[in-house]
């Protein structure tokens, strides 16, 4: 199983900050599609992904226990 973290607009749209998902052996791109379908999260297309607190590309393949965060365009500072 994998922990999925959502932030900012994604978090509000999904109505939760965190969820559990079986994503092992899926690519980040596939996980995005899955979430988009389940939660109507179109904004996930313009979000980055981070695996275990490091940015990861769409073809990164998820392993057991990985934490995947979806990061909308940032606006700190």
């Amino acid at each position, binding site marked *: 199983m994998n922990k999925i*973290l959502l*932030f*900012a*607009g994604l*978090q*509000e749209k999904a109505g939760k900050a965190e969820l559990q998902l079986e994503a092992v052996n899926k690519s980040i*791109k596939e996980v*995005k599609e899955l979430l988009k379908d389940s939660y109507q999260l179109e904004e996930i*297309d*313009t*979000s*980055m*992904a*981070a695996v275990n*607190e*490091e*940015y*990861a*590309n*769409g073809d990164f393949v998820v392993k057991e226990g990985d934490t995947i*965060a979806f*990061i*909308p*365009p*940032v*606006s*700190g*500072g």
Partner: protein
Amino acid sequence: MSNKFWISEKALDIQEVVDLVTRREAGAINTFIGTVREFTKGKRTLLLEYQAYVPMAEKKLAQIGEEIKEKWPDTDTAIAHRIGRLDITDIAVVIAVSTPHRADSYDASRYAIERIKEIVPIWKKEYWENGEEWIGDQKEQKAYPKGQPDEEDLT
């Protein structure tokens, strides 16, 4: 991680950040303080809310410090970013960079704030009289069409 890069739920203390980079070798300390502005493009902001992916944000702030050390040798950097609800004029971010000579302190400090806006997972929600919105991509230079920033932004 270092204790010079942190996310805080409490008000930031400029002196505390400056103290972290003050040293005998430095003659210059540049500080950038980002505050909550009332008007953006004519629209009145009532308050802001900042959210962060805290552990990753602290790592990315520390990464910016490392990048600065590589680009400008003999610099020392500290960065604190606040999260939660902020009122107008409250401090959202404090960057302090100390260097032996002043030119580098300006360049490195400027680099830090630009990088924060690129790679650090922190988000701002603006509250106006007639609505609220999570602000994204405020640099307005990239829309992350590939779902992530370019490779060179992340390394």
